[in-house]
């Protein structure tokens, strides 16, 4: 019984190992979506220029050498500079590309909240809208006379 369980487990591991390895391996298709063709100024996956073809060959060679996605992107940066990355790195000055929109959004949200609070407070102080004043006795008499004249 124990032998059968051990054999089954070993067989399952043997079958799953290539799948796990494939999942961890870098893929050209995935990297192409994350890096630029520096000459074309577009994502590599959209580029067909001779430079883009050489970039793909370079990536393929690193994949074949067993490099990870991060290592391949580092190698591309070493060759072409930070601009080869479709998204700027999240460190140094490039971090501002992520922080500035967040800070701007927070400032706008706070400003909007303060504006709404002030508007609501201003509305509370004024109270309900004023009622129309009642007509004077003289006006009321004239109104009644006019209505009687037109038989309304």
């Amino acid at each position, binding site marked *: 019984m124990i032998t059968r369980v051990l054999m089954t487990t070993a067989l399952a591991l043997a079958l799953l190992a290539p799948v796990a390895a494939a999942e961890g391996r870098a893929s050209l298709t995935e990297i192409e979506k994350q890096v630029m063709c520096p*000459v074309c100024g577009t994502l590599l996956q959209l580029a067909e*220029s*001779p430079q883009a073809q*050489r*970039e793909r060959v370079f990536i393929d060679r690193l994949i074949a050498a067993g490099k990870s996605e991060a290592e391949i992107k580092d190698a591309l940066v*070493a*060759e*072409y*500079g930070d*601009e080869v990355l479709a998204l700027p790195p999240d460190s140094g000055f490039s971090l501002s590309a992520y922080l500035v929109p967040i800070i701007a959004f927070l400032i706008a949200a706070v400003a909007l909240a303060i504006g709404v609070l002030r508007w609501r407070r201003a509305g509370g102080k004024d109270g309900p809208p004023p009622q129309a004043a009642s007509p004077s006795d003289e006006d009321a008499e004239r109104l009644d006379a006019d209505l009687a004249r037109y038989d309304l």
Partner: protein
Amino acid sequence: MSFRSVIAVLGVLAVVGLLVFGLASKGASGVEVGDPAPKAPLPRLEGEGTQSLADYRGRWVLVNFWASWCLPCRSEAPDLERFQQEHGGAKFTVVGFDSRDLTEDGRAFVAKYGLSYPQLRDGNGDAAHDFGTTGVPEKYLIDPAGKVRLLVRGPVDEEYLEEQVAPLLPKGKQ
């Protein structure tokens, strides 16, 4: 001035500053004939260290922007090497700027065409941007004072080099 006014002025200044920065960084860059050539140091394509055009002050330099994936660069490479062999020396040299290219590809190109003149690596294209290139190949003839004397967009051949570039250089073997 009230606090609210100060905030408003600061906001407007920030927006204007961003616009000016954007225009300055994207605006007209590059050199024309008569302008001083950019001198930012670049790594050598082969070997260690960096080199700048400032290191060539006092010499005529024909800067050639090229890349291994560029077909016209291949066709003109032998002519540029012949021109270097004919005119290169103490007062003149061709200097290659391998632009937006893979290091190994660039080195293989140099070896294949037997290029003997100095080669610098402009992997991220910063030098190409500073010069204002529109592609590769492009050439800039720089005089001993560091000013651009001739700008050639596109490939050249031996005839062009002898007729247009050689007459600008001091007479005889440099």
